[in-house]
């Protein structure tokens, strides 16, 4: 298609994109202006109005309360992301390149774990974690996120590795490389983009997860999403502080997307999307 600079099609295309972009930005606008209002100005009736004066006190208050929990979230999300990605890579490698009788069945069984409704297994899970002594610790929460992350990461890596030609593995094998050698020298170096995709997905999900966090950890162990909820009371919610807190709490995931967004698409392109 040879596009002339002023074609109607182009105008049409940009119009659609800009309209959609505005639609996508609308909620952000509401969050931003609400977070900059003093509490007595926050009401449904004035939700679209700009604040009369810029009031940053919500941010100060939210930051004071969320600050200590930020560290917890990093202690949680970074190891859990890396561990679940590594396990997923390992599983994906085995399930795509070292198939054996019944490996497809195992893959199916692993994948099914993705669909389990988490609310339903809270009670046995807490009892189990208490048995093994991991209840009320970040480690327990890491374990849970790693385990329930395995299905998704396995799926992504398996599809990713399916695109690596079997011949490469075969020739390495003839050169005498074993299971681990092939993984280290051939598969891992090819997986960087795969890791980016999986890491973004897992990091965001773990960072934003609330249900496990609130049930498995208590007070000073709690990640930032729980602290964010704790900004609101049982009866009165200060929406300005809540919105400021939500924006602060979303910063790390936001940065991940902005910095790695390009690689996200590139990583998907490298093959982890093929169903």
């Amino acid at each position, binding site marked *: 298609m040879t596009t002339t600079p002023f074609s109607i099609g182009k105008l049409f295309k940009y119009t659609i994109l800009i309209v959609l972009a505005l639609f996508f930005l609308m909620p952000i606008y509401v969050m931003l202006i609400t977070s900059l209002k003093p509490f007595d100005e926050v009401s449904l009736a004035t939700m679209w109005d700009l604040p009369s004066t810029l009031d940053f006190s919500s941010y100060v208050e939210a930051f004071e309360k969320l600050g200590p929990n930020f560290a917890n979230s990093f202690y949680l999300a970074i190891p859990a992301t890396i561990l679940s990605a590594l396990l997923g890579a390992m599983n994906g490698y085995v399930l795509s390149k070292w198939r*054996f009788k019944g490996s497809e069945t*195992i893959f199916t069984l692993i994948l099914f774990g993705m*669909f389990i*409704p988490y609310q339903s*297994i809270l009670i*046995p899970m807490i009892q189990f974690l208490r048995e093994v002594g991991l209840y009320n610790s970040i480690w327990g929460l890491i374990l849970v996120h790693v385990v329930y992350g395995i299905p998704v990461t*396995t799926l992504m890596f398996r599809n990713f590795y399916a695109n690596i030609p079997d011949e490469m593995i075969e020739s390495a094998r003839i050169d005498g490389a074993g299971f681990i050698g092939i993984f280290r020298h051939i598969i891992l170096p090819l997986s960087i983009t795969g890791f980016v995709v999986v890491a973004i997905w897992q990091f965001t999900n773990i*960072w934003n997860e609330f249900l496990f966090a609130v049930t498995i950890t208590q007070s000073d162990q709690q990640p930032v999403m729980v602290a*964010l909820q704790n900004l609101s009371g049982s009866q009165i919610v200060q929406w300005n502080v809540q919105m400021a807190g939500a924006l602060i709490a979303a910063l790390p995931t936001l940065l991940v997307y902005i910095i790695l967004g390009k690689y996200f698409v590139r990583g998907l392109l490298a093959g982890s999307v093929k169903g």
Partner: protein
Amino acid sequence: MEKRKKKKRSKDQWTAIAFLMPSVVLLFIFVYGFIGWTGYVSFSNWNSLVPDFSFAGLKNYLYLFGDFRFQADLRNMLFFTLLFIALIILLGLSLAVLIDKKIKGESIFRNIFFFPMALSFVVTGVVWQWILNPSTGINNFLKTFGIEPMWYTDTNILAGFRWGEIEFGLPVAIISVVIAAVWQLTGFALAMYLAGLRGIPDELREAARMDGASELRIYRKIILPQLRPITAAVIIMMAHISLKIFDLIYAMTGPGANFVTDMPGVYMFETTFRGNYYAQGAAIAIIMLLVVAIFIVPYLWNNRRADK
């Protein structure tokens, strides 16, 4: 020589299986062990704070299937899932096609569409609850065009007819929840399709163009079929989110008037932890898993066939 290679191979094969084992063991406990426990509870009489594992037969299941709220939940889940996935695919694909064409400011647009993915469902829920508030939200603008939808407070059921306890049809209120969910996750579909489009070799399009095929025809006959596996992956990722959806509903609308925006996940949480109906909650979980199986088994089966 031949023999040695074979032996090495089988030794490696065992290593491979050994590496798989930690995941398998963990999942066996955390998924199948806990599902087993849940299944066991669902057949018990444990419907108060005092655990009671006596056998109740199908009592909890029968109760649910005759229950107005649960019937409404199944209806809502069906329509939510269908609309949500259809819209995500449509919007994600269209955006990908638009952005793919080397436009100016690509990274800005991309980041705008990715941005909602960085937020948690709880935050999304609250913001959209405000925006779609029928008296103060976006209706402030729509009013000028003479339309004032009731959004998530609308209790109408489109094309409804009486079925069991409920009116079966599309609950209008569900559309609002779909909008919020689509807003949050379109970025994912966009990224997938963008990657897919860029993975299609230009030669393919060029060749078709040389043959005189129109742009539309190229998309229909060449591009879309190539994207089919991506669509399958998007469906499976989105289905697992939509079938379990909880935080978004909980923060945005709650169960809704006459349960027009209720979902099984919400019902299960409330009945278990607010009402202490542990066995009933467990039964809901098991039914949800069965519904999931209906979705996922054909996908997996298809996958396996394709692999062979």
